[in-house]
């Protein structure tokens, strides 16, 4: 159940965060676009062709500090030289480079990343309702979730569940665990503006619950 909760939180967090980006732009938000995500987990083809082995126990001694997520901790510039070019492509993209990323901080108040030119209203509060999303794990469908966001000057100030998964014995657990955590994660992750997510290969089912899916839905 915890795993499901984490998945649920991740999915909804992505949706919510991205919706909030939309609303900070000049264009009106398009919550209806979220309906593209509805495939949920129950519809995809079975995949997982890969052999799964038991979980590893061996610790990796290579490291020097725990990695925490950008959303959860104050980000800092990497120790790398800021303008080191990441080299040229052996093929295709001669101008390939890795440019330094401006530091993004959840605490940073007004200056938005330059990637998001905004025409900010002076002081507005609005609510945005996401589309209903079917959530589940494997072949089990836990139900439908839908959230409403309150945005004040483009910042999310409240996350309210409209529908939560009901057809599972653990729904109480879900609502007590997920929603507060969701709000917390959203509030701290708002400034992590990203265009795409790179991660270990996901299956079609995993995609439906990924931040990338939320991105695709929010951009469309």
């Amino acid at each position: 159940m915890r795993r499901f909760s984490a998945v649920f939180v991740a999915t909804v967090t992505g949706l919510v965060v991205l919706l909030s980006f939309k609303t900070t732009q000049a264009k009106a938000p398009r919550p209806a676009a979220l309906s593209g995500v509805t495939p949920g987990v129950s519809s995809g083809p079975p995949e997982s062709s890969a052999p799964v082995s038991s979980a590893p126990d061996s610790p990796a001694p290579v490291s020097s500090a725990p990695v925490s997520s950008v959303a959860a901790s104050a980000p800092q510039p990497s120790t790398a030289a800021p303008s080191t070019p990441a080299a040229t492509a052996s093929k295709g993209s001669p101008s390939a480079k890795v440019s330094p990323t401006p530091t993004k901080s959840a605490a940073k108040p007004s200056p938005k990343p330059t990637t998001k030119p905004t025409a900010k209203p002076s002081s507005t509060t609005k609510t945005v309702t996401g589309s209903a999303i079917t959530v589940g794990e494997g072949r089990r469908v836990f139900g439908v979730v839908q959230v409403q966001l309150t945005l004040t000057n483009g910042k999310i100030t409240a996350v309210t569940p409209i529908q939560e998964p009901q057809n599972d014995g653990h729904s109480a657990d879900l609502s007590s665990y997920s929603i507060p955590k969701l709000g917390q994660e959203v509030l701290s992750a708002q400034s992590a503006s990203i265009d795409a997510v790179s991660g270990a290969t996901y299956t079609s089912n995993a995609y439906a619950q990924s931040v990338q899916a939320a991105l695709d839905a929010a951009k469309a």
Partner: protein
Amino acid sequence: MPTADTSTAVMARPLVHVEHVMGTVVSFDLRFAAESQRASMRAAVAEAVAWLHRVDDVFSTYQPHSQVSRLGRGELRLADCDDDVAEVLELCAQVARESAGYFSSTYGGKLDPTGLVKGWAVQRASELLSSAGSAHHLVNGGGDIQAVGGSAPGIAWQIGIAHPLERGAIASIVAITDGAVATSGTAERGTHILDPFTGQPAVALASVTVVGGDLIRTDAYATAAIAMGYRAHRWLESCAGYVAFAVGADGFGWSTAGYSGVGSVPAT
């Protein structure tokens, strides 16, 4: 690259397409200035999507009648296959050499170039879009990304790197204008990369992200690095033109000297 005034660049609504193919999902994100370009960009995406399905038909190891499956069973000779098959197998051989044998085009003793095919196919899809006139796009094949032109003139794409141990969290953010970002690991499909020298699943690293110019090698190098485990850091430092970020199975991480992503991981 168009030399538009970046301060006033206004882009049309993104063209986003999501395609279920090759056992995963490929997301397209095309940016362009004029709404009048949308129809031709749609056509370009359709062409790229058709290409990916063609690749799936030829290379799938899950379809018993694909050329690669039949080649693996000895029912076809390489000469009977599409030229693409020979090209991919040659690339596999090159990457195997470059990675001291840690990248392998076999899995469990059977022919399986899957570790290279996706990156290769997605890079080709991106090239198709470019040929069709797209100056700004991302193609994300199951987490492996080829990026072109930034999201607008003068604005880099911001790529979040999924935290392998915290579902939904972003471990680092890297900005690229043109290039590739690929991540391999155990997060989504269980342990699925074997150390070819021991035959055992490689478990030291939860994920490795490689950033470079071409997706073919960034993807294959990320896979090889997972197989290498503890040895990956030194090897990746030696890969000119590529930088990397990794998270160990214990949650501790490292990055190579050139890595410029934002995050909370010190280079070691």
